[in-house]
């Protein structure tokens, strides 16, 4: 087994060492019986379990830094199993925004992820991206990200902070615009403005 094959096998089994035997039986791993036994024995070691735990902590810590309100919401909704399931997928980054983007991609596809959680992750991630664009050139700063959400993120954050009941979905949804050029980075576009036009209400986060 070459160094590259060993590194590939190790990183494949690391997020979920209990599945090692099944993973390594795949035909893409051209392993001898001795190499396979060696890797399976490694996957059952206490040391690999600890390495796996270390990876999980770092991944969770990155989510906590990137999307703190969403993580609070996950706790409130008792959805920690979603994070655990996500973490069984291979890790792809050392950086917190990419980890959050990868988590967002996961929950977008996951039927058990409620819309309110998707909305919060989308919103927090878009705010980070806007902050990073603040130091970009004029055209980068002027970019506007439009989010079509079913819950108002501000109401949701207030409910989390005050431990109030979480808001219900808004029937017609809510449109949020995010730009690096605005003092508070985001604004909500009301679809119910008199006269049929869109009024823009800037809200401090």
């Amino acid at each position, binding site marked *: 087994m070459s160094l*590259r094959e060993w590194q590939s096998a190790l*990183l494949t089994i690391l997020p979920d060492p209990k599945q090692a035997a099944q993973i390594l039986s795949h035909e893409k791993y051209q392993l001898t019986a001795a190499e396979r036994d060696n890797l399976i024995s490694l996957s059952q*070691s206490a040391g*690999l379990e*600890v390495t796996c735990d*270390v*990876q999980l902590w770092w991944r969770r810590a990155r989510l906590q830094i990137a999307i703190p309100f969403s993580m609070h919401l996950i706790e409130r909704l008792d959805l920690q199993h979603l994070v655990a399931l996500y973490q069984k997928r291979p890790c792809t980054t*050392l950086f917190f*925004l990419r980890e959050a983007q990868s988590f967002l991609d996961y929950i977008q596809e996951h039927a058990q992820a409620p819309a309110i959680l998707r909305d919060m992750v989308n919103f927090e991630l878009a705010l980070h991206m806007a902050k*990073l664009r603040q130091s970009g050139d004029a055209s980068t700063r002027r970019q506007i990200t439009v989010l079509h959400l079913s819950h108002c993120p501000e109401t949701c954050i207030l409910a989390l902070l005050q431990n109030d009941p979480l808001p219900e979905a808004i029937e017609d949804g809510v449109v949020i615009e995010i730009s690096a050029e605005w003092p508070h980075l985001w604004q909500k576009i009301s679809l119910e403005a008199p006269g049929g036009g869109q009024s823009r209400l800037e809200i401090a986060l």
Partner: protein
Amino acid sequence: MSYSNPLAQLPVLGVGINYQKSYASILSEHSDLVDFLEFNPDALCSWQQRSGQWQLLRNPSLYQNFLQIRQQLPVTVHGLSLSIGSASGWNESYLAILDEMQSEVPFYWHSEHVGFLDVVTPDGEYLHAGTQLPMPFTYEALELLVPRVQRMIEHYQRPFLLENTTYYFPGIASDGMDEVDFLNALCLRSGERCGLLLDLYNFYCNAENFAFDPYTALEKLDMSRVVEIHIAGGSQHKGFHLDVHSNHTPEPVWDLLQWVLARAPNVKAVVYELLEQALDAVTEAGVCRNLERARHHWNQSREAIYNQQKIGALA
């Protein structure tokens, strides 16, 4: 001590700390405790989307903060994400960032962990460990690492140091070498400008986790290669000592520091490493106590070297 050795010619920096933006008050209020800063270029960056593509780019606010806090302190570079041991290729975007920074923030030397973070599998899947993983102690690993170390030295025209890492799983392939044999071979093959960043907490963790005597193991290490020392503290989990830089330096590591300082002729710097998130637990006063104690050992060793040189001159 050989004065033709380029590692011996490096400036003596003293006692430092790994840069984190929340250390600003330690650096301003206790400037007498910190002689230099060690910074991670990758920690001043973020992955950002540009034209739909994710790229590692300098984070301007983090970078400006660093320049402000750094002020006139000398700096060294300590990489986290070069992934020098990845068999499918190292992290070119990290090198691009370092190229950008080197003219604005000149550094005395550069270091990276002897390990790997990621790999592109033979069928093209990109996988990341999320934490440093060890290299096997094999000739194949040496053949991969040596040309990369040499390229780092040539490209930046300054010494490159390799840091020993902590690992937790058994049965790492070895071709008959242990970790110390491997580090010695790596330095010897990479040339005289390749040094070691000896992380004593990492070494202590490995010694505890795999039940070997750290002093017996370190007796074999080529001490003339040690340019920098890291000290730190961590925690235990499921019976393993973890390298998380979240605590005060434990007593056995202070003992190792004294022992190594007395034997490493070219050591130029000692760094107390702390995870930013652990600052509340360790407290600023606690950080200062670690720095003061490191300085005490450092001064003792410098005095001993000075006295030896004086005796040599008189003789």
